[in-house]
């Protein structure tokens, strides 16, 4: 079992124990993972084990995994489950928790700016309402999990999928993991935004069997407004991936979440043009925006960036898919 992570909020994610094996040039020994899905079915071929990495440079307004955005662990409070027993308030080392009592109920208030994420509260919470998302794992701890799932991977043609957050945010750790997987003949896939240094990206491309790139918007100005960052690096990396993978037995799937009024319409035509300019794309996936992530913002004490956004209708999705397919792209 991995140990729960304890670290100061300001520290960078790559500080941890000094005794583990060293992978990569910067001596990163532990990765921070916020979820391990042992039965993932939509992120690559077969039945897969998906690791959700912490940390992402992009801050997409509609992100459905906001717990993956920050590099440090996240404190989650589900007020609906909390019974107001107040044990966490006593355990808190930074006076960030307070018990708010009214006549008929008592609830916990979190002051997130003073919380130091020490992790003392979550293990003693009797109801499981308080949780720390983000545990540190060594590569060998993750390989032990993959070993348990090896039979189903081999039987179903599955393997490991690294997603997030942004798995390349912890690129040294990721490469250590991917090279071990290669040695042990485990099929690997990563799902990335493509927002990463070109040199790092090249190295990762050598190690991965299946690549998903999630594009957000083709128009750079709109991209900046929606995600806080330029898309120049993303588009050039997509081109790089497409050219590199072309010569090998690997796959590249481009994904885009379609949000009505945000990145549909003209953007779909731009996307088509962009994809047609690439040397090779295995498949394209248009995913309808969904609102399942909205309530997660409450748990994290944050506000959703696009509270009014609604899922697109099935007809609209169908129209866009047909449009892409009309240009000879393989749409799934």
């Amino acid at each position, binding site marked *: 079992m991995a140990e729960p992570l304890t670290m100061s909020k300001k520290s960078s994610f790559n500080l941890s124990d000094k005794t583990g094996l060293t992978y990569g040039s910067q001596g990163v020994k532990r990765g921070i993972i916020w979820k391990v899905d042992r*039965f993932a079915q939509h992120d690559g071929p077969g039945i897969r084990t998906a690791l959700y990495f912490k940390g992402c440079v992009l801050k997409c307004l509609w992100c459905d995994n906001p717990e993956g955005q920050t590099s440090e662990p996240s404190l989650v409070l589900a007020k609906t489950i909390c*019974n107001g027993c107040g044990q966490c308030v006593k355990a808190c080392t930074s006076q960030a928790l307070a018990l708010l009592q009214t006549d008929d109920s008592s609830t916990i208030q979190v002051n997130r700016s003073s919380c130091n994420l020490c992790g003392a509260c979550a293990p003693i919470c*009797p109801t499981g309402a308080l949780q720390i998302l983000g545990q540190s794992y060594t590569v060998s701890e993750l390989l032990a999990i993959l070993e*348990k799932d090896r*039979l189903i991977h081999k039987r179903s043609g599955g393997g490991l999928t690294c997603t997030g957050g942004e798995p390349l945010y912890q690129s040294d750790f990721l490469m250590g993991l991917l090279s071990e997987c290669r040695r042990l003949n485990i099929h690997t896939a990563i799902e990335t935004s493509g927002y990463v240094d070109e040199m790092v990206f090249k190295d990762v491309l050598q190690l991965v069997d299946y690549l998903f790139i999630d594009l957000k918007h083709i128009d750079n100005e709109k991209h900046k407004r929606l995600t806080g960052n330029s898309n120049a690096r993303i588009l050039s990396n997509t081109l790089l991936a497409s050219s590199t993978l072309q010569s090998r037995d690997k796959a590249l799937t481009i994904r885009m979440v379609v949000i009505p009024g945000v990145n549909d319409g003209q953007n779909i035509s731009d996307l088509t043009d962009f994809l047609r300019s690439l040397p090779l794309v295995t498949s394209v996936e248009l995913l309808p925006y969904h609102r399942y992530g909205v309530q997660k913002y409450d748990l994290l004490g944050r506000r959703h960036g696009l509270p009014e956004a609604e899922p697109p209708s099935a007809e609209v999705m169908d129209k866009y898919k047909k449009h892409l397919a009309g240009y000879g792209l393989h749409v799934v």
Partner: protein
Amino acid sequence: MIRISEITARVPYYGARSFYEAIQSVCFLMALLYIEGTGPVYTVGRFDSYIFPYYQADILNGSLTPKKAQELIECLYVKLTGNIMFYSADSSRTAPGYRGFETISLGGVDNKGKDASNELSYLCLDAAESVRTIAPDLVLLCHPRETPYALKMRAAELNALGLGTPKFINTETLKTELMNVGYSAEEASVGWVQGCTEPYGPGCKQYGHSAGCNVNLPMALEAVMFNGRKRTPNQSGSGELLGVETGDPSHFNNFTDFMCAVKTQIAQQIRDGHIASSRAEWVQARHFPVLLQSLFTDGCVERGLEANAGGAKINVGPGIVVAGGLATLADSLAAMKKLVFEEKKMSMEELFQAIDANFEGFTTTREIFTKQAPKFGNDIDYVDDLAREIFQFINDEAMKYFTPLGNRNVASTCRSVSNITEGARTWATPDGRKAGMPFSNNIGPTDGLDVNGPIASINSLTKLDFNRHFGAIHNLYLVNVDDEEKIHKMIDLIDVFFSRGGYHVQINCQGKEVFIDAQKHPEKYRGLMVRVAGYVAYFVELPKELQDQIIGRTSHYV
């Protein structure tokens, strides 16, 4: 009509000459066995194997078409559904749904280990899809290497339709289990399944696991907590002595001693159960001859002894039946080991008070025990190893005994839904289960607590050594299986379960909202079938508490 009268005048006495006559023979024989029998659980056996020669001959001489054959099989299914057993009120609560538990085993391998499936195997599955009756209970005998993918595919398609049939059995584990009770390897490879999950071979007589004695695992904990006594409902403290006096629970200062006491109580239950069921076996041998059954059981005629008196070639003792609750016990032990003995978050006295009060007024204690300890079914060795240890202990204890007729005793986990009936008479347990609530069902994890997906759940289960057990049901609830790709994934899951040594898996695929709607509008769902335990029943004919328990099972989205 004339044809019917000709055939019925001939079989079974003069022997069947055609496929039609063979089917009619089976039909008569099953009805007659039920008229004679002392209990349910007669099996139609490996139907596709022994009927195939008749089918093949008739197809070759042109007197039969596959379509006509399927129609006759469908007629047989309808007739078998009509055989209703009469149960005592108590028994009907452990196996609700009007079932006689007659199984038809399909596929499997022959005595040389070669695939034995044929066209009839597929026709039998097609017939089940067409008539949708709850009898017979179809079993697919799956050999890890021999059984064709197409057959597994057809079986999985039926399951995906929500019919809950067929169930899947691993022939390799089945073979080992049969060899444990005295079969040669060759005979054991042609074994099949009788009733819910019990292994069965040629010339076998089991003193009905339906007659075997229940072992109530969580009750062992109750006995340790109350110094060998039953906790009396509605008043504080303990009542009649039911187990061994293992002393005041607060005296246990390490987990090993505590575990030892739990095992002592289980051993006592197995011993008592063995004595009671041996008595039943003896009474049956003296007073209930089954002559017709003896005619069809190898060994009886040769020895001149009828089946109930021990005439069969291989006799298996009445056995010890685990009434579910293995996960409830393992979860409880893990919680106590971690929170009381290792982390010392709570003293034994505090735990005792909470249990004695059925957690009334101890909500926080209950939540700590529910939430802060690892649960069986998540691929966590800490708790899985405890389940493994208990499971091994039950097998070893049960196999120590022989009955008065000299039969080997074995333990199995097949008692359909006794986790509800036994749960109703068992006091609160340290996993947070309140008094009277159901246990975990059969061999599976506690409902809703296996949260790491089906692979982790399968990994946990297959840590148990099924080779020394005698049949163990596992229910898997998969929802959203609506296209071919997902059916492939279902087969992947079954294959992984079997390659890790699993024995029996059965699958529910019906969405929960369908069941909930059926509770509100039963008249719309007369034909809705559901996999209960070792058998299928019409959902609307089940009692409410069982319906709720089926809805509460952990479901995995595929």
